[in-house]
C-alpha cells in the first residue's frame, strides 16, 4: 500500500481515469494528456485548456473537450487525434456510451453526438446551458441536465422534441445508475435530485453542507457515493425503491475538510475520496476499515479514479501534482 508514482505537472488536474486496460490517464488544464505508467505526455490541445474528459467508447485512451472547441482522442500509441472541432465553443461536458460506440458532449446550450460506427453527427439544442450528460446503459437515450431538470433525447433520431424530467432549479451534474433504473442530478442548492425512470417519480436527497461536484455509482451500482460533505456520502440503491425511505451514511467525516471527489470500485464496496485539504482515503465499507492513501495535506484534490481491478488509484490536485497509489493485493 504505497504511493507508486508522484509527479508535478504544474497545471490543474482536470481528470484522472483508468481506461478499460486499466491504463491510468490524466488530463491537465493546460491541454496535456499524461500516461503516467509510460511517463509519456501529449499536447492534445495546444495553447488551450482541457475542460472535460472520458474514456473513449472503445475503452482505449481518453477523449478530451477543450476551451479551443476541439474534441480530441489521445491514445498512448497514436497520440492525439481530433474527432471534432467547433470554433469558439467551450466543450465542458462529455460522456461516452461503450455499448453504442457514441460520444456526446456539450458546449453551452448545444449537445453534439458523435456516432463512431455510422459516423453520424447529431445536434440537440436546449433552451439553457447543459451541465451534464449521461447515456442509459444501452446508449439509446441521452439525458442532459439543464436548468429546471433533464431533457431526454433518443440518440439515433435526428429531429425530435425531448421528453422532459422537470424539477425547478439549476441542475449542475448528472449520473445514471448502471442498471438504468435511476437518474441522479446534483443541484446548485447543495442537494441531489433523483428520478425513478419507470414512473418519473421524484426523489429529493438533501442535507449537504456544500455543493456536490462528484457523483459515482459503485459496488455493481448498488451504492452511490457523492462529495459535498465532510465525509463521503453514500446512498443505498439496494431495493427497487432506490434510496427512497433510506438514510445516507457519511463515511469518514473529517472536521474542517470537505470531500471534493469520490470514486468507488465498479464491482466492490471499496470507496476512495479526495479532500479539499489534499488528503485521500480509501475505505472498505463492509469492514469499516479506512486507510489514508495520502495523509499529508496539500492543494485540493480535483480528480480521482479507482482502477477496474480496484488495486490502484490515480489522483491529482489543483496545483498539478499527480499520484498513483497501489494496493497490496
Amino acid at each position, binding site marked *: 500500500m504505497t504511493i507508486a508514482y508522484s509527479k508535478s505537472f504544474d497545471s490543474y488536474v482536470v481528470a484522472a481515469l483508468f481506461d478499460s486496460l486499466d491504463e491510468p490517464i490524466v488530463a491537465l488544464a493546460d491541454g496535456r494528456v499524461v500516461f503516467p505508467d509510460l511517463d509519456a505526455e501529449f499536447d492534445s490541445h495546444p495553447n*488551450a*485548456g482541457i475542460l472535460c474528459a472520458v474514456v473513449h467508447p472503445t475503452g482505449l485512451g481518453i477523449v478530451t473537450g477543450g476551451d*479551443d472547441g476541439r474534441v480530441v482522442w489521445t491514445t498512448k500509441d497514436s497520440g492525439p487525434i481530433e474527432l471534432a472541432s467547433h470554433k469558439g465553443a*467551450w466543450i465542458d461536458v462529455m460522456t461516452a456510451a461503450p455499448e453504442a460506440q457514441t460520444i456526446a458532449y456539450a458546449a*453551452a*446550450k448545444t449537445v453534439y453526438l458523435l456516432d463512431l460506427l455510422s459516423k453520424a453527427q447529431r445536434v440537440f439544442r436546449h433552451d*439553457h*446551458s447543459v451541465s451534464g450528460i449521461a447515456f442509459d446503459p444501452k446508449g439509446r437515450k441521452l439525458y442532459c441536465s439543464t436548468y429546471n431538470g433533464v431533457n431526454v433525447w433518443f440518440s439515433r433520431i435526428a429531429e425530435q422534441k425531448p421528453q422532459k424530467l422537470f424539477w425547478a432549479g439549476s441542475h449542475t451534474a448528472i449520473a445514471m445508475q448502471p442498471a438504468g433504473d435511476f437518474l441522479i442530478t446534483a443541484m*446548485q442548492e447543495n442537494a441531489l435530485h433523483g428520478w425513478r425512470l419507470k414512473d418519473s417519480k421524484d426523489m429529493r436527497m438533501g442535507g449537504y453542507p456544500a*455543493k456536490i461536484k462528484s457523483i459515482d455509482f459503485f459496488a455493481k451500482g448498488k451504492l452511490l457515493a457523492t462529495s459535498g460533505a465532510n465525509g463521503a456520502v453514500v446512498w443505498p440503491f439496494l431495493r427497487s425503491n432506490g434510496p427512497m425511505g433510506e438514510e445516507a451514511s457519511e463515511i469518514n467525516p473529517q472536521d474542517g475538510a470537505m470531500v471534493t471527489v469520490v470514486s468507488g470500485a465498479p464491482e466492490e464496496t471499496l470507496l476512495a475520496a479526495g479532500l479539499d485539504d489534499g488528503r485521500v482515503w480509501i475505505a472498505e465499507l463492509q469492514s469499516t476499515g479506512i486507510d489514508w492513501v495520502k495523509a499529508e495535506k496539500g492543494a485540493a484534490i480535483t480528480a480521482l479514479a479507482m482502477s477496474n481491478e480496484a488495486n490502484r488509484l490515480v489522483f491529482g490536485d489543483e496545483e498539478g501534482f499527480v499520484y498513483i497509489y497501489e494496493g497490496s493485493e
Partner: protein
Amino acid sequence: MPDSAATSTKTPVTVLTGYLGAGKTTLLNRILTENHGQKYAVIVNEFGEIGIDNDLIVGADEEVFEMNNGCVCCTVRGDLIRILSGLMKRKGKFDAIIVETTGLADPGPVAQTFFVDEEIKAKTYLDSVTTLVDARHFDQALKDGREAKEQVAFADHIILNKTDLVSPEKLDEIEARLKGLNPLATIQRAHRSDVPIKALLNQHRFDLSKMEKVENHHDHGHDHDHDHDHDHGHGHGHGHDHHHHGPAHGEPGHVHDEHCGHDHHDHHHANPGHGEAGHVHDEHCSHQINPIHDEEIKSVSLSSETPMDGVKFTKWLDKLLAEQGQDILRAKGILNVAGEEKRLVFQAVHMILEGELQQPWREGEKRLSRAVFIGRNLDQAALKAGFEACVVQ
C-alpha cells in the same frame, strides 16, 4: 470580499455594464489589444462583437435563474458559474477576469453570483461593477427604461464616456444626475473609452476594506435648481486620483472626505489636468457638482455619532433586506459598535449581506457610524428612524 484584497490569491473580476452604445466593445478591444502588461480573460455576451481571436474570450448566455439559498432567494447567473469554474482551472494564464453584460442587463444577478456560489466565492472576488455611460445619449437611455438607471445605481465606478460630444454644462448636469443616483461610485470622464486600463481593473472597489468611500453623505444641499457652481477653472490643481487613495494616500486608514471637509491639496498626484483624457474626476471639492436626485432611484445616507447596538442593528438590517431587498440595489456602511474597538463594515447587494469587523478606529478619530442605501422606493424617514433606533440608549 472579506479577503482583504492585497494578500488575496483570489482572481479579481470586473463586471462591465453600460447601456447599448455606451462604448463597452471599444473598451474591451482596448483591454485585449493594448500592451499594458496584464492578461485578461473576458466573458462577453456576444461572441462575434469582439474581433479578436483569443482563447481567453468566452461567450456567455446571460442565463439568469432564481436560487433558493437558505432563507435568501436571489437571482444568479448560471452560465457565469460554469464559465468561471472552467476558467479557474487555468489560473495563471491570466491576471484578472472581465465580465461584460448586455446593454439591457440588470447587474444584480451578476454581482450576486459572486456571493452565492461557494466555489466562485472561494476562487474569485468581485473587484468592481464598472458602468459606462454615454454622455450624448444619457437622457434618452434614462427615458428608455429602468436598465440604464439601475446600471448607474449599481456601480462602484462610472465611466462617463463620449464627453467630447456634449457641452461642459451638459456634462456637469449628467454628472450631477449620476451622483444623485449613486453617491458611492467614483466618476471618471472619458472620450472614446480612453481611460487608463490600469485604473480600470483590479482596484478593489467592491472590497469591504475600501469602505472609506462611504462618507458622511448626509444632506448635501438638495438644490434642485441647478444653481451650483459650474465655474470651475479647468486649471485647478487637485486632480488627485481616487484609485490610489487608501494605503497609498500616505496616512494609514485615511478617510477620504468627498465633501471637501479637509484639504486635498497636500496630496501630490501628477494626474492629467481637467478635461484631458485620463483625468480622474474628483467627486466634489471646489468643483462642486451637487447631486440631482432622481424620483425613482434614490440614495439615503444615514449617520450617527452615538455608538450603535450591534445586535439591534444587525436585526434591523436583516429585516430590512429581507423585506425590501428587491428594491435595495446596493448598501454600504461603517459602524461604530458600542464596546467594539474595530469598525464593523458591511455591504449588501439586494438581499445578500456581507459584513465583518475591520481595522480599529484610530486614536482621536471621530467614531461616526454611517450607512448608504441606494434603491427604488426608499422611504427616507423610515430608514432614518430604523437606523436611529439602533443606537445605544
